[in-house]
C-alpha cells in the first residue's frame, strides 16, 4: 500500500469537471479526499455482488469491468471502466452491490470511504451534482448496452463497443497518436456482447480485413473513424459529452 498522493485524484477531478464545471475550491476538495492507494493484480475483485459497499474505488491506472453471472454461470460484462472513473458511484446509496467489479488488467485504485464521499456531497452540492451527472451518464451507457445486445447483429455490436471505448478514452485524453489500448481478450469481448468467443474472433478478423480496424498486439486504431462509426451504428449522443470524435 502506497501513501496517499496529493494529485492521485486529479483524473477524477478532471472527469467530474468535464460533466459539470467545478471551481478551484471544489477541485481542491476532491483532491483532498482521504484515500488509500492500492495496487491490484489483473482479475482481482474490487467488489462482489452481494457485498456491502463501504468505500468507492477510483481507478487510477488500468482497466476494470462490471459484470454479473446468470444462474447457469454464464457471464455478462456490463461496462468497461477506464482510468479516472469511480467504480462505485453506482452503489453510493445502496446497501448491497448488485454486480461485480473486477480488474481487467493490473492497475492502481484509490479507495475513498463512502462516508468521505457523502460528506463531500453534503458540503459541496456542486460536486454532488457532478457525481449525480456521472451516474446518470453511466445509466445511459447501460441503456445503450441493452440496445446493443438486444438488437444489433454481431458485427455492429462489436464495432459499437470498440467505438464507445475509443470515444471514452478520447474524452479522458487517454489515447496515443490515434491508437487505443484494448485491454480486453476475445473471451471478454464475447461476454460484453453476448456472443461466443469464436464468433468474436471471426468478426474481428472481418473488421480487420475490411480495413476498419488495425490491431497491433494490445493496441487498436481506426483508419477511418467515419466508416467505423457507420458500421457500428454509433451515435455518441448517449455519452453526453461535447463532441470528441477520435
Amino acid at each position, binding site marked *: 500500500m502506497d501513501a496517499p498522493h496529493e494529485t492521485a485524484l486529479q483524473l477524477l477531478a478532471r472527469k467530474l469537471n468535464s460533466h459539470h464545471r467545478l471551481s478551484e475550491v471544489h477541485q481542491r476538495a476532491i483532491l483532498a479526499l482521504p484515500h488509500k492507494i492500492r495496487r491490484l493484480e489483473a482479475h482481482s475483485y474490487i467488489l462482489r455482488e*452481494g457485498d456491502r459497499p463501504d468505500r468507492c474505488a477510483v481507478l487510477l491506472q488500468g482497466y476494470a469491468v462490471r459484470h454479473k453471472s446468470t444462474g447457469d454461470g454464464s457471464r455478462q460484462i456490463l461496462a468497461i471502466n477506464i482510468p479516472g472513473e469511480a467504480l462505485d458511484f453506482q452503489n453510493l446509496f445502496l446497501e448491497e452491490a448488485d454486480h461485480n467489479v473486477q480488474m481487467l488488467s493490473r492497475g492502481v485504485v484509490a479507495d475513498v470511504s463512502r462516508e468521505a464521499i457523502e460528506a463531500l456531497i453534503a458540503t459541496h452540492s456542486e460536486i454532488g451534482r457532478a457525481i*449525480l451527472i456521472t451516474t446518470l451518464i453511466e445509466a*445511459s451507457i447501460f441503456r445503450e448496452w441493452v440496445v446493443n445486445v438486444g438488437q444489433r447483429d454481431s458485427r455492429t455490436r462489436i464495432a459499437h463497443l470498440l467505438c464507445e471505448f475509443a470515444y471514452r478514452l478520447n474524452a479522458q485524453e487517454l489515447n496515443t497518436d490515434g491508437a487505443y489500448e484494448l485491454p480486453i481478450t476475445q473471451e471478454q469481448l464475447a461476454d460484453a456482447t453476448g456472443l461466443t468467443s469464436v464468433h468474436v474472433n471471426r468478426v474481428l478478423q472481418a473488421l480487420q480485413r475490411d480495413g476498419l480496424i488495425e490491431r497491433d498486439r494490445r493496441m487498436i486504431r481506426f483508419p477511418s473513424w467515419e466508416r467505423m462509426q457507420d458500421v457500428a451504428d454509433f451515435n455518441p449522443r448517449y455519452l453526453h459529452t461535447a463532441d470528441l470524435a477520435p
Partner: protein
Amino acid sequence: MTDASSFGPLFRRWNRRISLTNEDQSAVINLPWLRKQFQRDAYLAREGEPTGVCTVLIQGFAFRQKILSDGSRQIISFHIPGEFLDLQNCLLEVADHNVQAMTRSLVAIVPKDILLQLMGARPAVRKAIWLDSLLDASVFREWVVNVGRRDARQRIAHLLCELALRMKAAGLGDGPMFDFPLTQEQIADATGLTAVHTNRTLQALRKSGLINLTASKLTILDWDALAEEGDFGERYLHHSVQAVCSLSGRASEG
C-alpha cells in the same frame, strides 16, 4: 397543481427507504406540476430533443425505447404509476431515448430547474431522487444480462417476474392476477426476440402451467417455478420490493 393523492404511489415507494417529512412531501406536491393526458402509443419525449422537464407517471403504463438506424426498436424499461419516466433529464441536456405511453396515461410534468431547486433545498428529496436513478441503472444492468445471456424462455419469464413484483410492490394488484397491457410485440422488443419466437415462448410457458396471459391480464400460476425458469433473483431491485411482497407459492392455493 395537482392533488396529493396522485403522488401516493411515489411517496409509498420513497418512504420505504428514506424518511421524508410532511414538509418534504408537501414541497413535492406543491411544485407547479402540469397534468397531461397521453393516448396509447403517444410519445412523451423523443431522442435528440433538448430536455426541459421531468415527468412522473400518475396513471397508466409507459415505456422507454430506442430506435436503431435500421428501424428496429429496443424497449429499455417499463414504468408503472409512481415512477419518474425521465429523471436523467434534470441534469442531462439532450434526451438519449424515447418515452412512449403504453396505455392511455396521465402524467405530472415539472420544469427541471424547479425540481433541481427543490433537490438543493431538501436533502431527503434529493436522496430519494438520486436513489431512484441508481435503481433505474440497476434494472438497466439486469436487462443487459437478460438480453445478453439468457435464452428466450428465461428472458420472458424474467421480464414477467420483474413486472409482477414491481406492480405488487406499488400496490397495483396483489397477485396472482395483474393488469398487463403489454402486447406480444412489446415483449419481443423488450427481450430482443422476434414476435414469432415470443408468441411460441409464451405459449410454452402457458402449457407448462406457469402463467395465463389474456389481452390485458397476466396470471402467474406458479411463482416459484416461473422465477426459477426466469433465473430471477430480486437483489437488483434492492429491497424496493422484497419486504412488501410474498408472491411465492402456487396461486391455486391462495
